[in-house]
């Protein structure tokens, strides 16, 4: 086994034996997410679900499908979930989302029914037109719920249940078919254009900016990653501190007295910080998706994002260890750094700061991570995330480079 992993896994083991560290790493972010979530209304007390999501529905379709989708949003079953306004004009509806008045707009275009259900006279269906869900990414959960309702409706259309039922009613009423022909007609329809994937029928678009006002954002969606990253920054400072602790305890010298180079020891310690950070983030993410039912997005992309965030954070931990003189200095500065980075990086409120502070916030892994997690929650893919990932790794390499230079100058890694 490579020295890097030997040292890194040792650190992982040591850290997970330390009860005080575990409380700060895992329990504290969880409790804070929960606490702040309750305070800011992230949960509906009884069900833990969101409610009264403001949605605007524009139905320009005069067919049955458009009507029934629009009715679905206003139905008794979904009455608690949505606060629906009707709006005749698509542009006006989009504006409502842009302004942050509503979380999403469901835009049903003219000819929607016709594009799915064959014309009763000709038996032909029209060109495909799409239902559009126009979302506010600042409210990933609320707008996601609206999207999910549209998706499930469309998937029922696809399997032929809604479309078939409505179409058959129409055909029967117009006298175009006889009751005896029904099974065959339904069969034909379910192999028609409606058989295409639902993604083709729904078009999801996001507003360019997070439009919603601060208290209208779903707090859990940014609090969970925010708190995780806040305490991640503290964890990496603990990792950095362990380098100075080991120097003081003599285990660093002992490692150097084995056939191991100073550079290997430092890399090993960096791996240790990294492993602990990744473990912490993944535990928090899995726990919050199970307990808070939080949807973080594509699991692979989430994992890659975590690897990148922790890389940037580990860079800071290492730099802290390089500049500090004593272990306790690392802890106190680390605590301050975690809070400061959390504050300017948006861990507490999720929004992006503008102006000079906003630019400054780009030195924090928190800010990039917050953006990344918001993108994933709104359904973006790994590819969309590439700039964020690149930024975090660049941050990592720059910080590690500087830290190593300082360690070298201090002669801490002799031989």
């Amino acid at each position, binding site marked *: *086994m490579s020295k890097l992993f030997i040292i890194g896994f040792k650190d992982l*083991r040591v850290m997970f034996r330390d009860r005080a560290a575990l409380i700060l790493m895992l329990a504290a972010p969880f409790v804070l997410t929960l606490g702040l979530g309750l305070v800011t209304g992230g949960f509906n007390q009884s069900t833990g679900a969101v409610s009264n999501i403001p949605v605007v529905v524009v139905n320009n379709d005069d067919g049955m499908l458009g009507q029934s989708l629009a009715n679905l949003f206003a139905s008794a079953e979904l009455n608690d979930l949505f606060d629906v306004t009707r709006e005749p004009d698509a542009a006006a509806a989009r504006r409502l989302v842009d302004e942050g008045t509503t979380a999403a707009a469901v835009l049903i275009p003219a000819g929607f029914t016709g594009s799915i259900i064959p014309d009763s006279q000709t038996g032909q269906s029209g060109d495909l037109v799409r239902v559009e869900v126009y979302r506010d990414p600042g409210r990933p959960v609320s707008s996601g719920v609206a999207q999910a309702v549209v998706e499930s409706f469309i998937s029922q259309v696809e399997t032929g249940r809604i479309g078939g039922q409505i179409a058959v009613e129409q055909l029967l009423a117009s006298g175009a078919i006889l009751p005896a022909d029904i099974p065959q007609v339904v069969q034909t329809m379910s192999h028609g254009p409606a058989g295409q994937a639902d993604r083709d029928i729904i078009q999801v678009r996001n507003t360019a900016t997070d439009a919603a006002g601060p208290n209208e954002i779903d707090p859990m969606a940014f609090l969970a990653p925010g708190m995780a990253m806040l305490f991640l920054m503290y964890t990496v400072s603990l990792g950095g501190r362990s380098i100075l602790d080991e120097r003081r305890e*003599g285990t660093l010298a*002992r490692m150097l007295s084995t*056939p191991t180079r100073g550079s290997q020891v430092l890399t090993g310690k960096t791996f240790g910080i990294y492993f602990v950070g990744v473990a912490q983030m993944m535990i928090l993410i899995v726990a919050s998706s199970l307990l808070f039912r939080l949807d973080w997005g594509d699991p692979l992309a989430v994992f890659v994002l975590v690897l990148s965030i922790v890389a940037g954070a580990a860079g800071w931990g290492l730099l802290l260890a390089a500049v500090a003189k004593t272990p306790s200095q690392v802890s106190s500065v680390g605590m301050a750094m975690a809070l400061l980075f959390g504050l300017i990086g948006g861990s507490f409120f999720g929004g992006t700061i503008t102006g000079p502070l906003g630019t400054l916030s780009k030195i924090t892994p928190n800010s990039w991570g917050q953006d990344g997690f918001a993108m994933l929650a709104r359904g973006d893919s790994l590819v969309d995330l590439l700039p964020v990932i690149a930024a975090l790794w660049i941050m990592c390499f720059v910080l590690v480079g500087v830290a190593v230079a300082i360690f070298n100058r201090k002669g801490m890694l002799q031989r």
Partner: protein
Amino acid sequence: MASLVEVKNLVRKFGDNTAVADISFTIEEGEVFSLLGPNGAGKTTTISMLSCLLEPTAGDASVGGFSVTSQPLQVKNVIGVVPQEIALYDDLTALENLMFWGRMYGMGGAALKQRVSEVLEQVGLADRAKERVKTYSGGMKRRINIGVGLLHRPRLLFMDEPTVGIDPQSRRNILDSVKELNRQGMTVLYTTHYMEEAEELSTRVGIIDHGKLIALGTQRELTKLVGEMDTLRLHLNDGDDVASLADGLRSLPEVIQATTLDHQIALIVPDAQEALPPALSKSMDLGYKVRSVDIEEPNLEAVFLHLTGRALRD
């Protein structure tokens, strides 16, 4: 054949403070070589340079034929190090500590497991191997600390004051295992400020003071330096002012040197028979009751005293 260790004019300065001032010596394969010296003499600094942890300010040394300045990795493969301060992970068990350090020496797999249980047996802690080191007594920690240095069966073992601050039983255990390791063929560089340990263990002893090697040889060679001196050791009661009594005794013509340690006074005298009666009556005159007296042949303590005018421990 060349010596296992050859130290050539090693110097180490910390700023203006010269910790090691130009020392040279050799250690032959199979020896237990002790560096005997008081606090701050430069023992740890010497070992740190020999184990490639500190760069010499000047001079060089070879270990197993490799230079400590230019071939550190090769040197580290030859040596095992038992540092003066216990260097273990408190939150890991003894077993986990040994496994980790074994891997750091490039060991692994079944061979490492086998070796770890051997070492645990050797230091007498096999039955407590699965407890965290933080629950251990000082003596037990010291034993694991030594065990780590033995894992990869080094040709040469550096032991830096391995018995400081522990109970007599653990100390016995450690001294016995040093002798056993040496019997099995391991060469040992041992530092201490206990002359009894140096006497019991060493093939040769180097006496170090203020960074200089002031004497080097077998115990017999060294004690010859003192000439025909004896040591009279007077044991006094708790609470006696041994320092002022020592001052009084120093004025006797029969006494060359007087030093104190706990409730004892050691007198260096040309002839024990002749010096004993005046020493006892002087003590009585000054109002002290001597509980018992030992007469000792010349020892390393006397050598140190003779060479420096100071006691090894103050």
